[in-house]
């Protein structure tokens, strides 16, 4: 029963649909006048399927300030201090950033790459010049006698490096300012071989072999003055400690030697025993000693071993067969 | 409908382009090489022959498998010995097998040279074959059986039927017999030594392996009445 009733209800709707379709087909010649508009099939009979979206009103953007800058303006007052890059303020056509091959790098507008890197636009040559002029009245002249590097090196062998920091912040004490670096040439200490060896062992990696420089950095103490005093103390202590000969140093035996020294080795005793006289009196002993030291110090290879053989031949006065 | 046609044809074109890649994926069961790789031509003679006939240009762009490290163009290489080495090999220990073969040849030379130096006359000396490879080939030749016995079930009875065999099969049997003979030894004797002795014996048409061959022939002769009972 239920089914039947529903069917009955449906019938008039179907007929309406039919009529609609028919009317659509018939109405087509009437709407020919609006040719530009695309006629969409509207089965469900919705009134206005296409709603136009309201456009956002854009606020007007002023042109960048850089466009209106005069050529002869004072740049120092436009860009007085350190600041991150601003495209509208910098009147330069700078470009920065990665692109695919062939394309130019992105321009300065909306360019994060340019804003990330530190710039020195506040340190242009005229600005620096102006600042130097302002500072000049606080400086003393450079001593005239110290006109070249050698003289500086000779008269002032110790070089002390420290940094001062000056910027606007609640405190004027920068933690980096306390660090003291002391540099000097090892040769200026005029140490003998033993003392030099000991000095080198004491300073360890602070010695640079290439330019013969010792570098001591002190940053333990809170104040610059304290660190400076400590560095000076260190230099003094190192110097005197390396000059001192401790009793245990005499116990250094041949096994502790880093390099083979023919003079105090069994090789010398051997040939002295062999010839029954001092090594200086033996002919060709010098060459032999050199060959042995080479052989021991440079390691074994065909060259050193043949040199050694030659030296032995000369020492023992063997005739060369080759 | 037209659009679908176009789409299909495009798909087809794509699959056509992909064919070499597909065939690359196809492989020979366990081999590391795809099946279109060809075996290497490592012998100089074959290479020269190909150059002469002009077939070499055919091979120039075909991907080739790498040569195995036992295969060489050296004149000391002998394919039969390489095959025999593979039969000697157990559990994939090729290096060991090769070492054993080398020692075996050394032993053959020592055995033969000993005999050679014992000989008093030149004629006797000439009779002794000093080249171990020739000894080896002769030994293989002499131990090749002519027939083989195969079990055939007829009316519930199993008959041993003599069958003629191919050359390849008979070579295989001969080599296997020689390897077996090398293993049949006292514990103190080394395999290489025993194999050398067997090879020398076989090359002189004596020894265990030749006897084994003759025994097989005898058995075949005894069962020759069943010869017509082969398959079918």
């Amino acid at each position, binding site marked *: 029963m239920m089914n039947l009733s529903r069917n009955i209800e449906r019938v008039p709707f179907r007929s309406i649909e039919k009529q609609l379709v028919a009317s659509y087909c018939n109405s087509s010649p009437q709407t020919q006048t609006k040719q530009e508009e695309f006629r969409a099939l509207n089965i469900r009979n919705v009134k206005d399927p296409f709603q136009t979206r309201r456009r956002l009103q854009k606020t007007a953007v002023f042109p960048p300030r850089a466009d209106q800058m005069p050529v002869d303006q004072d740049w120092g007052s436009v860009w007085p201090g350190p600041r991150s890059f601003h495209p509208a303020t910098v009147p330069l056509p700078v470009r920065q950033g990665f692109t695919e091959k062939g394309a130019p790098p992105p321009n300065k507008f909306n360019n994060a790459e340019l804003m990330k890197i530190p710039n020195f636009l506040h340190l242009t040559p005229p600005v620096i010049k102006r600042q130097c002029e302002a500072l000049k009245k606080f400086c003393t002249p450079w001593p005239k006698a110290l006109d070249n590097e050698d003289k500086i090196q000779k008269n002032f062998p110790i070089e002390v490096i420290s940094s001062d920091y000056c910027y606007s912040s609640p405190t004027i004490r920068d933690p980096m300012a306390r660090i003291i670096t002391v540099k000097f040439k090892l040769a200026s200490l005029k140490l003998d071989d033993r003392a030099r060896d000991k000095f080198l062992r004491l300073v360890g990696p602070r010695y640079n072999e290439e330019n013969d420089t010792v570098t001591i950095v002190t940053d333990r103490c809170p104040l610059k003055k304290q660190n400076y005093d400590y560095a000076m103390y260190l230099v003094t202590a190192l110097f005197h400690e390396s000059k001192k000969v401790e009793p245990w140093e005499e116990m250094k035996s041949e096994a502790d030697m880093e390099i083979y020294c023919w003079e105090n080795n069994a090789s010398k005793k051997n040939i002295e025993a062999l010839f029954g006289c001092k090594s200086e009196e033996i002919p060709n002993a010098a060459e032999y000693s050199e060959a042995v030291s080479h052989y021991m110090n440079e390691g074994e290879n065909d060259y050193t071993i043949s040199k050694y053989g030659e030296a032995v031949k000369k020492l023992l006065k063997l005739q060369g067969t080759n | 409908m037209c659009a679908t046609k176009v789409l299909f044809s495009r798909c087809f074109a794509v699959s056509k382009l992909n064919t070499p890649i597909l065939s690359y994926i196809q492989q020979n069961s366990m081999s590391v090489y795809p099946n279109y790789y060809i075996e290497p031509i490592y012998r100089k003679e074959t290479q020269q022959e190909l150059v002469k006939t002009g077939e070499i240009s055919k091979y120039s762009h075909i991907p080739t498998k790498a040569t195995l490290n036992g295969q060489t163009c050296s004149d000391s290489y002998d394919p039969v010995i390489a095959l025999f080495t593979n039969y000697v090999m157990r559990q994939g220990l090729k290096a060991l097998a090769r070492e054993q073969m080398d020692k075996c040849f050394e032993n053959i030379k020592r055995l033969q040279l000993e005999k050679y130096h014992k000989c008093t006359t030149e004629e006797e000396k000439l009779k002794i074959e000093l080249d171990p490879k020739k000894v080896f080939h002769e030994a293989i030749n002499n131990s090749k059986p*002519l*027939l083989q016995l195969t079990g055939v079930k007829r009316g519930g009875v199993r008959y041993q039927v*003599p069958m*003629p065999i*191919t050359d390849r099969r008979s070579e295989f049997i001969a080599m296997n017999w020689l390897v077996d003979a090398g293993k049949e030894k006292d514990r103190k004797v080394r395999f290489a030594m025993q194999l050398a002795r067997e090879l020398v014996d076989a090359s002189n*048409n004596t020894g265990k392996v030749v006897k084994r*061959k*003759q025994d097989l*022939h*005898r058995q*075949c*002769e005894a069962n*020759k009445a069943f*010869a*017509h009972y*082969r*398959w*079918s």
Partner: protein
Amino acid sequence: MRLFPPLAFIKRSRAVPQEPVPYKYSVPLKLKQGVSNKGGKISEVCCIHEMSVMFSCLKDNEFQQQLCHKEVESFQKCYTSFLTDKNQRSEREMKGLLTPGEKRMTSKQLNVLLKKYPNLE
């Protein structure tokens, strides 16, 4: 049931088939244009005569093979020729080439033959 007696009536009437059941063909009722692929094997028996000749020679010579060189060679030659013959024949058969005068034919050869002279439709 009480509500819809007419439905029950319909059911009863359907139980009786009104027309005869149509015949279903599992295969078409006519001869095929080929035969199925079942192989008859060729006999392997060969060289019986050569073998017996060789055996008699071997027996006479205490199984010293080198003394029966001729017999052995003829036996081996027979076997190799048999093998090559067999191979050639099987190759032809695989390809379906017909050998004139051949009475035993493989399924493939028969199919070729049937294709040439098909059954009447």
